[in-house]
């Protein structure tokens, strides 16, 4: 129990993590062959602690001395086999090993990008590349009267109703659970209620008088646009969060792609077509 506890404590030590990780980094960055030509296998407290801990979790008791020796012998065998297998190149073509290593490398590549903060200039550049994406949706204020499904009958009815509206008479169509009047509605809001077709149709309507019918996913509408805001240039201070999110998502993807491109440069990829 005491050994397990101390092993556990040890395993929680950041310093230990750091040392192991450092060794791994060194190993990975130096190419392959983790034994670096050094034919030495060290059985230290950490190793024994982990082995004993695992045994304890399985059997709920400490191993005897013989059992501990057995665990250590087996662990040494693991290391010997592993190193010999690597030197024989047995990891090559093993999809599991290959994928695992790739994932680790990819994770390393994006670690930096995730903690960086972009400058205002970088964010502004992103806005300038696609201002429409960050521009506030131009807002439209309008009224609409719903006529019903798009049928020839309803199209004639729309004509009649339009004439009445233009004379200033009150006209109501079938009741629907969306408002008759929209005040400063964004394109997204209009599309959400009527569908994209209507939003596009509405764009071509001259403000000031009843017109139509305009078709939507719901049928036919008569509309009167009272005001239409102009599309405004996006201002960084107003859209900072969105731009930064995009910047970060792009930076992460780019970091990965660049890291790969850098590594790829060191290789000659030869495609041999069958003769």
């Amino acid at each position: 129990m005491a050994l397990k506890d101390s092993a556990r404590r040890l395993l929680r030590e950041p310093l230990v993590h750091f040392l192991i990780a450092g060794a791994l980094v060194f190993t990975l960055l130096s190419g392959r062959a983790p034994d670096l030509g050094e034919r030495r296998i060290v059985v230290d407290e950490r190793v024994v602690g982990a082995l004993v801990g695992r045994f304890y979790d399985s059997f709920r008791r400490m191993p005897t001395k013989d059992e501990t020796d057995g665990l250590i012998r087996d662990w040494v065998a693991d290391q010997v086999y592993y190193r010999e297998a690597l030197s024989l190149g047995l990891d090559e073509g093993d999809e599991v090993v290959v994928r695992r290593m790739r994932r680790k490398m990819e994770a390393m590549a994006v670690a930096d990008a995730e903690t960086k903060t972009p400058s205002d200039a970088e964010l502004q550049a992103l806005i300038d590349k696609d201002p429409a994406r960050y521009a506030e949706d131009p807002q439209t204020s309008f009224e609409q009267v719903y006529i019903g499904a798009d049928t020839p009958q309803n199209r004639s009815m729309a004509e009649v109703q339009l004439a009445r509206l233009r004379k200033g008479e009150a006209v109501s169509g079938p009741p629907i659970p969306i408002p008759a009047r929209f005040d400063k509605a964004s394109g997204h809001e209009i599309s959400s209620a009527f569908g994209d077709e209507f939003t596009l149709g509405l764009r071509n309507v001259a403000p000031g008088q009843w017109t139509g019918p305009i078709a939507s996913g719901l049928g036919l509408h008569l509309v009167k646009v009272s005001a239409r805001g102009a599309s405004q240039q996006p201002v960084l201070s107003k859209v900072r969060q969105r731009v930064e999110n995009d910047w970060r998502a792009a930076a992460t993807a780019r970091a990965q792609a660049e890291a790969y491109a850098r590594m790829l440069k060191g290789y000659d990829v030869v495609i041999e077509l069958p003769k």
Partner: protein
Amino acid sequence: MRKTTALAAMLLATSALIGGCDQVKQVVTGQSEVKEAPYPERVYWGDTHLHTANSPDAFGFGNRLEPEAALRFAKGEEVTSSTGIKAKLARPLDFLVITDHSDGFASIKDLYNAPRSFITHPTMLRWYDMMHESPEQSIKAVGEIIDAKAKNNLPPELLNPEGAAERLKNNWRAHIATVERYNDPGNFTAFLGFEYTLMNRGNNLHRNVIFRDGGNRVAQVLPIASNNTIVPDGLWDYLDAYEKKTGGKALTIPHNSNLSNGEMFMLTDPSGGPMSAEYARRRAAREPIVEITQIKGDSESHPFMSPNDEFASYGDAGWELGNLDFSEKTTPDMQPGSYVREALKRGLLIQQRTGENPYKYGVIGSTDSHTSLSTADDDNFFGKHPGAEPSDKRVTRSQGLGRHDERQGWNYLSSGYAAVWATANTRAAIFDAMMRKEVYATTGPRMVLRVFGGWDFKADDLKSDWVKAGYQRGVPMGGTLKAGSGVPSFVISALKDPQGANLDRVQVVKGWVDASGQAQEKIFDVVWSDMDKRAAVGGKVPAVGDTVDTATATYQNSIGAPSLATVWSDPEFDPKQRAFYYVRVLEIPTPSWVNYDMVRFKLTLDPKIPLKQQERGYTSPIWYNPA
């Protein structure tokens, strides 16, 4: 030095190392104040139930998309799914709640990424090896993990808050930071939340938790795991403490009652004793709404309780046969405790006895997708988990995780979404609408439904500003009728999805307690398309017809109606009888996702597999209490 540490941390992927400096960021919106409408004028669409790579099962299934990808997808951005398919919503959502399992939050991801030599637990080591071996083995490992969870037999290292506290804290804070970055008041609401995966021997008692608050409050707590408990009291205690500590607010939403073998909506308290008024009150206060439809089936109704309802079996196939892990088959006597309509009736009965209604539920739909992709459109359905993402195999693949074959891919529904009548697109406004139950569920289509209940609504009301009148003279869906005399009347208006199918009919589902103390139900067809040509026969409106061409997975809006509206009064009203009324709206038949798959992948399918369906919306009820 810093760089080396970061590298080391990544290699170890013990997020404890990178977590130290991780401060939860306050959201900087920069936008002006969000304007609130005087009353809800538009409906907001969202998903209250989505899993990412932080959910242990989702990760094991192969989900590698983190919360950020889930948020970007919901906002309408294109992302690449875990199986490498480009995915984009035809229409963005207005809000999203990422609800990763709190049991083992991010643990399988961390386990997978840990150095093998650090894993001491033999079972965890076994899962570790399976996950690294192949996608098939990984899915098998998840089967074992879900089994172990159902048997309350997970290795403590995966759950134990002591050993895992630091890891959990860092994962939780990283999650909060991401959600805060994407919450954009007025445009897109990203809620903080988690799923509390409560289970009793495989009987699904899961709840989703939604916080009304931002990271400054939510980061003061860690998501609580259900561990080995089998009653929700621990969750409610936790949320009471959260509210007291932070001044914040939270609600919970039960789901998949259809997999609870009768335990979600019991007539008794969880121990089998009589339900106390205190339990009923507490449950109702914490659980204003229930998830009535999702990918793992629809929980509205079952033909066993509703033999006269020809639409009752929607989304029941497969799911009705057993509990979540199929460790226990379902017997008919269990069904009443598993479906929402019955819960609403039982709520009345319990209220009759105790004065409190524990099941006074509003309803929402959501996906419960484990792909990080909130898809509920049949022509763009990414499935339950990465193993069920689009492929020529998914329709007929067994979903029993190697343990049983009763449930197959085609049993999944491409369902559903939550519709919320809120005064603005903000956390506060949407949360508050959920608390007052002014919400409804659909199986995916974005149809617009409005209901007001009162005592003096007349057909003429529909000719003027009936929405304003509805709020002034009545209560909206989710409300309780004010005191009044005469007969309750309801203003009901339904509109098709602007990019979807026409409507077949609008029905009112009434439940009440009769003079002998028995709960009853009845369905009224109140308005339907082509009423002049489709006269009711024997109290039933004939079927609307069918334009689906399964060879091409298409349909025509040549039948049905784009909008249906009426003012309906209850012809059988008895002022002495406690009652509820909710609206069910059916679309005309349309192709199901299975049909789209069949065409897309040129499949030859067993004729018993249905290819079309009538999608639907369910509103929250309006209740009547006798004086």
